[in-house]
C-alpha cells in the first residue's frame, strides 16, 4: 500500500488556497443529494455537522452521549491559540506554524500544520460571531494570555472553561441545524462498526444504548470525530466514556492507525489517592507560572511540608533547567517528576506525587492576587483532596492527557479508506509527537469548521447520481451481525471478574511498561502481558443483564475489549520506534543529560499500521516526513 498524503504542490503558504481552488465542487442544489454521517459530537464533530448542514448536505449525527454538549471537549480549561497578533508581539501564521512543528518534535506533516495556523484566525472570528464569551479587556477588545511556554500571547480564553464555551458554540450551531431539519441527531447511539463496500466507506452500524437496538446508517461519506484513546491507560484525565472503539472498528475495516505511541502526559494532575480512583483531574498548566515544584531531599522525610526547611528541599526543575525552570514543556516536566518519585522521594500518603508550592508566590503577590488568578483551581483542588493550597503545597503528578496518534489521514482529512474522514483528536495529523497547550481546541475546530467542509466535496462531486448503498445491502447485514455477535459473545462469557478489573489491569501494564519512559524490555513485557490479559477477558469477564436494555457494563465491555487489542498496537508502535521524541521517551535513546534523543535519519516518518487480525503482527506503512520550512533541530530548555 502506497500512502499518498495528497499534499498540494507549491509554496507552503499557498498550498491551502491553491487546493481549495483545485478541488471539485458540489453545486448548492446538489448538496441535498448527499448524505454524510458524522460520528461524535465534540468540537470537531459538532462543528463539522453544523457546517455541513449549513452548506446543504443531509447530515446524520451519532453520539453516544445523552446530548451532543457532553462530549469531552467540554472539559478543556486553558484556551485556544490563534495567530491573530492582537498583542503586537510578533506573532504570525509562520510563528504559530513553527512553534507547532517544533513543539511536536518534528513528527507532524508540515503542510497540515501550516494550514492549521492559517485557519486559526478564522476560528476566533467564527466563535465570537456565535457568541462565545471570550475574556475581554476593559475597552471591549479580546484578551489574550501566554500559554504552555509560548513566547507570544496568542491564547484566547473564557475563564477556565474555554473548551466548554467553544463546544457550546458548536453545539448551538448544530442545534440550529437540527431544528432546521438539516441534521438528524441520534443521541445515546454508539457506533460499533464501519461498513465498507468496494473500498468505500458507506455507513456505520450502531447500537442504541437504551433499547439495545442495532441499527444501520447509510451515507455517501462517514466522518469520525470520536476523540482520543487516552483511557487505554485506565487512569487519565479523559472522561470515563472516552474510548477508541469507533476508530478501532474502522481500523479493523482497513483504516490505518498512525503513531499510536505518541501519547501526551500532562505534568500537573492530582495524584491518585487509592485503587478505587476512577479518573484523574487536571490542574491547569497555568499554575506552573507561580508555583514552584519540589520534593524533600531525603526520601525518608515524613515531616509535613511546612516543617521542611528550604535547605532540605530539592527544587529539581529549577536546578536542572535554570533557564526555563518550572516552565519546561510538558514532557520534560513529567519525566522529571517521574524520576523523583521512582527514586523514592515522592510525597503524600502513598508517595506518588511532588509538591507544587505557592508559598513563595503568596508572600510575594499577596493572597488577593493569587485568588484572582487561581481561586477556582484552588477550590477545585480542595474539593477533591481536602487540602487548602493556600496553606499547604499542592501535590501533583503527571497523567495521561491527550493522544497525538490516531487514524491516518491525508491532507483532505480522508483516511486510506475512501469516503472515511477523521477529524480532531481521532486523527494523527497535526501535533506530531507532542501537542502544545491550547492547540487541541484549535485543531478540532479547524478540522470541523474549515477543512472538512472545503475538502469533502472533492470526494462527493464524482458520486453525483449514484445513490448511497442501502442499509439492506449484505455489507450492512454482515456488519450488523458482527456487532450482535460481539455483544452475545461478551454476555455469554459469564466469568468472574468485572469489566473494570480488566481495564484497571490493562492500565497498569500500559502505564508501567509504556508510560512516561519506555524501554525494549518493558515494551516486550507488555507485548506478552496484554494478549494474556485479553485472553483472560474473553474467558472470565462477568457482565450481568442483557443486550436489549440500558446496560452500562456491556457498553464498557465493548470499549475495554477494543482497548485490549489497541493497547497491543500502541506498545508495538512504541517498540518499533527506536528513538525518543516528544511524548515518546525510550530510555535507550537519550542524551547524556537524560533528554529525548531523536533519530531523524531513520525515524522521520509517520508509522501507519494495517490490521491483520487479533494477535497477528500488523503491517507498518511509512509516510516519510520532510521538513522544508522548519529546520530540524534538537529541542533544548536548559
Amino acid at each position, binding site marked *: 500500500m502506497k500512502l499518498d498524503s495528497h499534499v498540494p504542490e507549491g509554496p507552503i503558504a499557498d498550498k491551502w488556497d491553491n487546493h481549495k481552488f483545485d478541488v471539485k465542487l458540489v453545486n448548492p442544489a446538489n448538496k441535498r443529494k448527499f448524505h454524510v454521517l458524522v460520528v461524535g459530537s465534540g468540537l470537531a464533530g459538532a462543528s463539522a455537522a453544523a457546517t455541513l448542514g449549513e452548506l446543504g448536505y443531509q447530515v446524520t449525527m451519532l453520539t453516544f452521549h445523552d446530548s451532543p454538549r457532553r462530549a469531552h471537549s467540554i472539559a478543556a480549561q486553558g484556551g485556544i491559540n490563534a495567530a491573530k497578533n492582537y498583542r503586537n508581539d510578533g506573532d504570525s501564521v509562520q510563528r504559530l506554524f513553527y512553534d507547532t512543528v517544533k513543539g511536536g518534535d518534528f513528527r507532524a506533516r508540515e503542510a497540515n500544520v501550516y494550514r492549521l495556523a492559517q485557519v486559526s484566525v478564522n476560528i476566533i472570528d467564527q466563535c465570537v460571531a456565535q*457568541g462565545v*464569551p471570550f*475574556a475581554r479587556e476593559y475597552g*471591549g477588545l479580546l484578551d489574550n494570555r501566554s500559554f504552555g511556554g509560548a513566547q507570544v500571547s496568542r491564547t484566547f480564553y473564557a475563564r477556565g472553561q474555554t473548551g466548554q464555551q467553544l463546544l457550546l458554540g458548536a453545539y448551538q450551531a448544530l442545534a440550529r441545524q437540527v431544528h432546521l431539519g438539516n441534521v438528524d441527531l441520534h443521541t445515546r447511539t454508539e457506533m460499533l462498526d464501519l461498513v465498507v463496500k468496494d473500498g468505500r466507506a458507506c455507513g456505520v452500524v450502531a447500537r442504541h444504548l437504551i433499547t439495545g437496538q442495532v441499527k444501520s446508517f447509510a451515507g455517501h461519506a462517514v466522518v469520525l470525530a470520536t476523540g482520543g484513546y487516552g483511557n487505554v491507560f485506565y487512569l487519565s484525565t479523559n*472522561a470515563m466514556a472516552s474510548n477508541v472503539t469507533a476508530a478501532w472498528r474502522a481500523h479493523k475495516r482497513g483504516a490505518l492507525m498512525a503513531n499510536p505511541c505518541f501519547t501526551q502526559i500532562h505534568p500537573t494532575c492530582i495524584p491518585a489517592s487509592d485503587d478505587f480512583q476512577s479518573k484523574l483531574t487536571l490542574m491547569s498548566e497555568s499554575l506552573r507560572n507561580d508555583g514552584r515544584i519540589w520534593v524533600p531531599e531525603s526520601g525518608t522525610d515524613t515531616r509535613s511540608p511546612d516543617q521542611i526547611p528550604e535547605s532540605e528541599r530539592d527544587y529539581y526543575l529549577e536546578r536542572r533547567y535554570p533557564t526555563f525552570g518550572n516552565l519546561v514543556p510538558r514532557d520534560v516536566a513529567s519525566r522529571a517528576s517521574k524520576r523523583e518519585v521512582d527514586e523514592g522521594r515522592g510525597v503524600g500518603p502513598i508517595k506518588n506525587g511532588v509538591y507544587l508550592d505557592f508559598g513563595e508566590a503568596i508572600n510575594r503577590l499577596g493572597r488577593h492576587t493569587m485568588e484572582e488568578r487561581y481561586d477556582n483551581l484552588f477550590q477545585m483542588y480542595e*474539593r477533591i483532596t481536602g487540602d487548602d493550597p493556600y496553606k499547604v503545597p499542592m501535590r501533583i503528578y503527571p497523567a495521561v492527557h491527550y493522544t497525538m496518534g490516531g487514524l491516518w489521514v491525508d491532507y483532505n482529512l480522508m483516511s486510506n479508506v475512501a469516503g472515511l474522514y477523521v477529524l480532531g483528536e481521532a486523527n494523527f495529523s497535526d501535533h506530531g509527537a507532542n501537542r502544545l497547550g491550547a492547540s487541541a481546541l484549535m485543531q478540532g475546530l479547524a478540522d470541523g469548521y474549515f477543512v472538512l467542509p472545503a475538502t469533502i466535496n472533492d470526494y462527493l462531486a464524482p458520486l453525483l447520481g449514484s445513490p448511497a448503498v442501502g442499509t439492506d445491502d449484505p455489507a450492512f447485514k454482515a456488519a450488523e451481525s458482527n456487532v450482535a455477535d460481539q455483544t452475545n459473545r461478551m454476555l455469554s462469557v459469564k466469568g468472574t471478574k468485572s469489566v473494570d478489573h480488566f481495564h484497571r489491569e490493562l492500565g497498569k501494564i500500559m502505564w508501567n511498561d509504556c508510560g512516561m519512559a519506555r524501554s525494549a524490555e518493558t515494551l516486550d513485557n507488555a507485548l506478552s502481558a496484554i494478549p494474556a490479559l485479553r485472553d483472560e477477558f474473553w474467558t472470565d469477564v462477568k457482565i450481568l443483564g442483557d443486550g436489549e436494555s440500558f446496560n452500562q457494563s456491556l457498553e464498557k465491555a465493548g470499549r475495554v475489549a477494543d482497548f485490549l487489542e489497541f493497547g497491543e498496537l500502541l506498545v508495538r508502535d512504541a517498540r518499533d520506534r527506536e528513538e525518543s521524541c516528544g511524548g515518546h521517551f525510550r530510555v535507550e535513546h537519550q542524551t547524556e543529560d537524560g533528554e529525548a534523543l531523536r533519530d531523524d535519519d531513520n525515524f522521520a516518518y509517520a508509522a501507519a499500521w494495517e490490521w491483520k487480525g487479533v494477535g497477528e503482527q500488523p503491517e507498518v506503512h511509512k509516510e516519510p516526513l520532510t521538513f522544508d520550512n522548519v529546520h530540524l533541530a534538537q529541542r533544548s530548555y536548559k
Partner: protein
Amino acid sequence: MDLTLRVWRQAGPDSPGRFETYAMPGVSEDMSFLELFDVLNEQLLADNEEPVAFDHDCREGICGSCAMMIDGRAHGPEKGTATCQLHLRKLKNGSVITVEPWRSAGFPIIKDLAVDRSAFDRIVESGGFITAPTGAARDANEILVPKEASDAAMDAAACIGCGACVAACPNSAAQLFTAAKYSHLSLLPQGQPERYTRVVAMVEEMEKYFGSCTNHGECEQACPKEISIDFIAMLNRDFVKAQFKNTRLSGQRA
C-alpha cells in the same frame, strides 16, 4: 468510614421502583460520591445483582452528566458542587444516604438513577443559538463587548445542563436553565438581532416540558455553577417585551 446507601432502583421507564439499602463499610473519605457507586457496583456484581445505572462522564464537574438527588438535595449537600465532585469527607460517618433520580415529567427515568434530559436539547434547538453560518464572520475584534457584559454572559454560559435546577424546583420548572442559555446570548451584541424571537421560542419550548417558575429560588442553590436567578428576571422581562414590542419598526434598537 461507614455509610449506608438507600438507592432508588427502577428497571425501566414504566416499571415500579423501590429503595434498596446497601451497607458500604470501610470506604475512604477521599472517595468521590461516584466512586462510592463504582465500589457499590463491584459489590453488586460479585453478588450477581445488576449494577446501579447512573449517568456520569467527565467526573470533574463540567460535562453535566451526573445527576443524583442526595438526601433531598440536587447534587447533595455541598454548595456549588456537582455530584461527581462531592467527596465523602463532606458526609457524616455512619449516616444513611438516600439517593433518588431527578424527578420531572420532562426528565423521564430511563433506569435506576439515569434520566432522559433531551428536553434541554429541544429548548436550545428552538432558539438557543446565534445564526452565524461558518465563514461569514468578520474580524473578532470588530465586535466590542463591554467587559461587564462579557463577564455576565460568561456567568450565564457557565451552565452545564445537568438539570439540577429542574430537579430542585418544587414546580419542576426549567427557568434557570433556559434563562442561563438565553441570557448568555442576549447579553452580547452578537445576540441582539434574534433577541426577541429567541426568547419567545425558548420559553414556549420550555413550557412544553416543565413547570412554571414561582420564584422559590431553590434552583440557584442547587446549581453547581451557582447561576443567579437574576437571569430568570431578565428572561421574564424580555418575554413580556417581546409579546408587545413592535419589533418590525424598532429598527436597530433591540
